[in-house]
């Protein structure tokens, strides 16, 4: 575009094009449909590819994976999951302005501020809210879902690396929105089991 502007800019000796519109006459209609159709079809091809790509992504994102991926970490840990009996299912409840992490299983309990998970095991999260709209997101693992009062949104991910990660709220939920954070601690499997059994 910059090239075209410079190439066709007005110079002292340049003439008006033959079809310059003038006052007193509606200008002729100009423009080949052909050129537009060509660019349009090119974009359509790209766009259709995008759509199918997205479909694959939608299926992956919204359907928790099969049991083969999951570790049966703790006996009975995720038995209540209808979609996949092997995956640990953890309830996450948004409050103004903190998250509840409810672990299932024999040592069921609720944590705030620190969310512990074993490395390399698929987890399914059921996210909801007790008051207003929140949005639960862990950027390093590219997961995010709204926490909506009255409904549960399910997402899943594999914490593939140990370490500490930031959990943030991505929907303006009130005056404490900016500090509605928590830490995700991904632990080696033995230390996770040790921690879980000691709670």
């Amino acid at each position, binding site marked *: *575009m910059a090239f*075209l*502007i410079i190439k*066709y*800019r*007005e110079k002292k000796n*340049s003439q008006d*094009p033959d*079809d*310059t*519109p*003038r*006052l*007193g*006459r*509606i200008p002729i*209609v*100009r*423009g*080949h*449909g052909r*050129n*537009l159709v060509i660019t*349009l079809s090119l*974009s*359509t091809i790209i*766009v259709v590819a*995008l*759509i199918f790509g*997205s*479909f694959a*992504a*939608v*299926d*992956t994102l*919204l359907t928790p994976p099969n049991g083969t991926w999951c570790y049966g970490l703790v006996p009975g840990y995720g038995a209540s999951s209808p979609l996949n009996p092997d995956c640990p299912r953890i309830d996450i409840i948004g409050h*103004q302005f903190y998250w509840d992490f409810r672990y299932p299983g024999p040592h069921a309990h609720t944590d705030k501020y620190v969310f512990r998970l074993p490395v390399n095991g698929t987890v399914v999260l059921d996210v909801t809210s007790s*008051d*207003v*709209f929140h*949005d639960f*997101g862990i*950027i390093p693992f*590219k*997961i*995010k879902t709204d926490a*909506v*009062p*009255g*409904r*549960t*949104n399910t997402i899943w991910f594999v914490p593939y690396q140990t370490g500490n990660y930031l959990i*943030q709220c*991505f*929907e*303006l*939920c009130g*005056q404490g*929105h*900016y500090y509605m954070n928590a830490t995700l601690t991904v632990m080696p499997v033995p230390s996770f089991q040790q921690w879980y059994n000691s709670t």
Partner: protein
Amino acid sequence: MSQEIVPARISRWLFTTNHKEIGILYTITSLFFFVAAGLLALTMRTQLSVPDNNLLSPELYNQFVTVHGLLMIFWVLSPFAFGFANYIIPLQIGARDLAFPRLNAMSYWFYLVSGAAMIMSFALGGAPDLGWTLYSPQTSFKFTPTIGLNVGAAGLILIVVSITMSSVNFLVTMFKMRAPGMKLKHMPVFPWAILVTIFMMLYAFPSFLAALLLLYVDRAFGTFYFSSIQGGALLWDNVFWFFGHPEVYIVLFPAIGLIADAISTYTRRPLYGSKYIIGSMVAAAIISFIVWGHHMFVTGIGLTSTKLYTVTTIAVSLPFDVMVIAMVESLVKARVRLKAAALFSLGAVALFVIGGITGVYLASVALDHALRGTYFVVAHFHYIMVGASIMGLIGGLYYWFPKMTGRMYDEGLAKIHFIASFIGFNILYFPMFLLLDMPRRIDTYAPNTGWATLNLMSTVGGFIFGLAQILLFVNLFASLRRGSPSGPNPWEAWTLEWSLPSPPPAHDFDTIPTIAEDGTYHFGNNPGYPNGSGYPNGSKIGNGIAYSHLEGQSPWPIVVAFSAFTFFLGITIGQPSNPSVPVTFQPFWPLVLDGAILGVIALYGYSKERFHVHEETNVESWPFRDVPNVKLGIWTFLGAEVIFFGVLIGAYFFVRTNSPTWPAVGSLFEVRSGFAMTLVLLTSSLTAIMALVSAKIGSRNGLMASLLATFGLGVSFLYIKANEWIFLGTHGVFSVANGLPATSYFITTGVHGVHVFAGMLMTLYLLVNTVKGRYLKGDYHAIEHFGLYWHFVDIVWVFLFPLFYLI
């Protein structure tokens, strides 16, 4: 022939109905709100420039975020564009004013007072502080007990009223008042863009109005449409975004139309593929109503819906692809004059491309999961709304400034303004694309997040962009007095407004031009007018055929707007006496009564005033040739009402299907009384028809009797309704606050009841005039218009009766 801008008496501006003066009022007011909202943004940028800053408290920051968004979207972008539309479109289509000049003035005053209400909310216990999307249930009384939100909601309701009146007005004008021979296809792109925008406004805003009404009632009377856990939150999301996505194009399209016309003018060639651009706009407008789900990809709308919205959302990028390509192609073999307006237009196209492509990123669900709620989104929509819309509209300001004032601005200063704005803009928003992990709307952040450098950069850019706008104001203000005279057509453009002196006289055209089959214009019976050469400076137009001068002063529009403002302020500013009760309806009665009484007087004065609107004959008015202006206006208004009731009924369906239990048929309502009301209303439709027939044949007694019967039947309907309400209320099972069945019933039938009541007031007015002997024979139009409205109200009941009583 440049005229001095005479400092006019204030009353001229207060009471004006001239489209050009109202256009100027719109432009100036929207620039005022632009500065106000811009200052809010700069304060926020300052707060975010360094980590752990405490310039703004979280409360204040959230208010600034919200009001900045609301002001820019509702009070800046659209009104800025409609300032131009008011001024230019009648000139471009060869009309002498809009179809309803007083209604136009009223739209402006509603716009002004609505903005005043929004800004006043800061002083009334805190402005809305939950984002411009006003997500439920945070809007409920429980989470936001301040009255600032009530006042803000009143402001929003008032501006929706303003926008609806405006859209009806423009639609009738553009369909019914084009110069003879001017087909729709002859219109430049800017009027087309406005036309498409109006259609979107007509069908998007009623949805928002219904949502606001339900929200206000929730807050004022403790009902719970949006705060119920049976899907209330999602109901708001759906209704809001059904409006919200078209709204994005509503603020964008006028700028696109303007850019397209400016490109044609400054490239000295006809716009490449203009009909494809217009076609694309229409396509994008239609698709915009079925893409709202993409705002809810991570809200949980199910697999199938997600896929459907992905398809529509990605598809909607194609029409924009056509528009951009056609604009770029226009440059080929052109002779580009890089005036300020051309720079702004071409700059806007470039920024729009960046904004558009990043939009396609967000349409992909996978990326949306990563990017939702981050600064990437903020960057994306600012590239569209500021980069394309504001830059394009500022270009329009430079483009039409000579036409509006008769003076040239300083070209050099304007170019510096462009360069500073363009560079400042990119320093301001580009870093935000890189802040992929920073949540939106946080008021501060920790130093260890790594966001500090980019934020500081963005703030610096913000100040460059903000300070650059001072150049605009200095330039235009100084040029108003000192600019060299511009002459009628400084840009050698072809559209009709440039055939008039700058500024045009009050009546615009001495003689209305006609457009011949071959596309040449003729002014009056002056066929010798040389085509294609443009007017020499200062020449008189046409041959001076007598025209009706539009005096156009009316005090009533501003009074009506002011009384509505007083009334709404009165019902929203009362502090609840008991904070633990979820009911904030504590009207401040002096204001409410003042507003109501003044409103009645003003409306009466408005309808009695002898205000003559000259309707040109022989204008081009396809496809509504045989429909008079007022009737077309009423049909359009009823079209918007259909959406309004559609959303109310849709909301009822939504809460009902989402509720685990619902009272059985017959357990709540007497089917008999519902049946009686249906019968009464249907009979009244019949009497309304009889009234029309009597008026047409000139039978005064028949007219009197039919109107009286209609009135009586309306009263009986309201009487049965009131009894039912009282019965349900006093028997306790059914108070407004005790359940969704009651909430939805009282709201939906209540709104319908208000419509019936308004119909009764109209019949009374008609009756009084009938006694004075009006409406007979050829004068039956008022009766017909009332009939249209009345039948509509009856049809709504025909839907409500089975929905509430029978299923």
